[in-house]
């Protein structure tokens, strides 16, 4: 049976940009105009979205569960932070170094992670993140330990745009990086490589039968996911000019999982929307009630899980189906 006998049109159609997607990417511009005083938060939303995207690639597409994804985020943050603290303050060089460093770590640890089943993977990823956390905690001279890495000084972006107090440069920088990497991820998941990952997630036993090397593919996507997370971490270090020990914390990994589930895993937009919803709710609620906001955040999450299975994206999908049904009924 040759591949040519399949109708590949639906796959090609999925690769094409939908008008709604283009509209979605106007949101950062709109947000900039509507909330000019909240650029710091918006920047961190973009960074979290990128971080979440990286988990989506390995969990949502390839089905590798991880409770220690902050390991790569933090590794990238420290790589970029240390580079800038030691005199090389070029942002793009920092991103490149962070991406390479995290990718290397991801590649090496992928062999450990891929050995086991889901539960073992949870434990191994968690363990790796905990080890890195303790190492960073103990290497006080290098990382500043709990006090955080200080003295990061960034040179202007592309030699022209300095990082300002209002966060304008930081915002456009983070949004541009997010968009480019999103575009790359979108290409990736619609490529044959991306489709083979979906296949692995859906039925791992059949994939070798059609000639897909399962472990090599998983190892590759895990490495790519790690690089993405490293870049997100580097962005945080560069835009806040500070690296806190909690970039490696368990809390960050767990929260990320939550954000992805909230947005809807297995959909790139789910990762981005999850980050937007979670971070906005977090911000608004903690501003309203600095002491008990966590209660309301918890309530919001429970409501979403109850009424919108598969997260916000799942809810939207069902809504659009329902709307489509109505339209057909009317005709």
């Amino acid at each position, binding site marked *: 049976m040759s591949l040519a006998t399949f109708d590949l049109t639906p796959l090609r159609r999925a690769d094409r940009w939908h008008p709604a997607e283009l509209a979605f990417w106007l949101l950062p511009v709109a947000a900039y105009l509507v909330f000019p005083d909240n650029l710091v938060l918006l920047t961190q939303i973009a960074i979290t979205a990128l971080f979440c995207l990286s988990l989506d690639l390995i969990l949502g597409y390839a089905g590798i569960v991880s409770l220690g994804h902050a390991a790569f985020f933090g590794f990238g943050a420290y790589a970029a932070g240390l580079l800038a603290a030691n005199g090389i303050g070029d942002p793009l060089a920092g991103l490149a170094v962070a991406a390479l460093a995290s990718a290397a770590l991801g590649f090496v640890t992928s062999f450990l992670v891929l050995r086991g089943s889901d539960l073992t993977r949870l434990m191994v990823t968690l363990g790796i993140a905990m080890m890195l956390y303790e190492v960073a905690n103990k290497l006080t001279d290098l990382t500043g330990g709990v*006090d955080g890495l200080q003295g990061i000084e960034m040179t202007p972006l592309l030699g022209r745009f300095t990082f300002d107090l209002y966060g304008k440069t930081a915002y456009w920088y983070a949004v541009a990086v997010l968009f480019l990497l999103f575009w790359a991820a979108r290409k990736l998941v619609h490529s044959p490589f991306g489709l083979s990952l979906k296949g692995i997630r859906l039925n791992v036993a059949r994939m070798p039968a059609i000639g897909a090397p399962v472990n090599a593919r998983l190892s590759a996507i895990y490495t790519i996911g790690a690089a993405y997370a490293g870049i997100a971490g580097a962005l945080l270090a560069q835009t806040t000019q*500070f690296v806190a020990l909690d970039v490696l914390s368990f809390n960050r990994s767990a929260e990320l999982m939550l954000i992805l589930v909230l947005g809807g895993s297995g959909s790139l937009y789910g990762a981005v929307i999850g980050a937007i919803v979670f971070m906005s709710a977090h911000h608004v609620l903690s501003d309203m009630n600095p002491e008990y906001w966590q209660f309301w955040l918890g309530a919001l999450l429970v409501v979403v899980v109850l009424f919108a299975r598969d997260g916000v994206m799942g809810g939207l999908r069902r809504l659009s189906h329902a709307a489509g049904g109505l339209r057909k009924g009317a005709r």
Partner: protein
Amino acid sequence: MQPRTSIAWVTAALAASALSLAAHSAWAADPLKVGLVLPMSGPFASYGKQIEHGARLYLQQSGGTIAGRPVELIVKDDTGVAPEISKRAAQELVVKDKVDVLGGFGLTPSAFAAAPIATEAKKPMIVMNAAASAITTKSNYVLRVSHTLPQLTAPIADWAVKNGIRKVYTLVADFGPGHDAEAQFKKTFTAGGGEIVGEVRTPVKNPDFAPFLQKIKDIKPDAVFLFVPPGEQTVAFMKGFVERDLAKAGIRIVATGDLTEEDILDAVGDNALGLITSLQYSEVHNSPENAAYTRAYYAAYPKDRPNYMSVSGFDGMQLIARTLEKTGGDVTADKFMAAARGMSWTSPRGSIAIDPDTRDITQTIYIRKVERVDGKLQNVEFDAVANVRDPGKP
């Protein structure tokens, strides 16, 4: 609450604050805006609570105005040890809320992260608890009204030497203030002829003291010197100390007052009786200012006890008021700092001053013993070292 109403509430709240984000409120007649970055949730939430109590108490007594302007106090939660959130909060207070003065900062990492904002935005930054010595060196606009760890440690180390303690094991939290405390104790104590027989640094978050306590028991020093941030940890340490019978093995405790401060003293309970610590404030400090302060505190917050953090919040606002009186209401950072340097006044803790060179606080440190006074555990002051500058500064 009905589930339906709570959903409606959340939705309404989200919508309302989205609106308030977009449209900036411009109602009051040019209020003086003070932004506090504090831990209001998480394991260090009581710091934020106490500091806010103190700050509000001062405003209540001054009729809600400073230098003739109504004061708007904006509190942002930074959840404790999460410097990136502290920094974001400080940045937002400056660019969005347009505050005139930054304040608060419960723990050292928050203050470190926010200091560059003070420099860049040119806003006075008043540290109300974070205690690593180096904080005031991170920006020329930082000044401190609370204390530093070396400042508390030197007097208690001296006291230990003079009271026959020769061998000490030090246990400190593994972050800036802990390192400061460890270094200062070692310096003062060995200079007086004492010997450090062991030292350990415990994690700042969720430490387990059991293995350290066992080790200390085996080594049998005369005393253990302790600094960990007050809260669950100090309570857990005392519990372990008692359970493992270290006191019966003849091991004493010398500590900074963080161990027996009023907010947690009742949780430590009778195990605290007899503990000797050093701190700048005690609820039973004997002065008319403190009598008035504690009376007002209990009237406003009957469920809590006034502690040193609340006094820092109180003095922080007091400093702003006194400084603006001097500058004639001018809050530009350079004028503010120039006026605040060398400022001195009588606080509920005694007389205090801002060092003109280091912008750090100079104050009396008291040596206190926990006793039962009128049925309540209290830190009774029995010795004092006046005008202690921060020994951590050159």
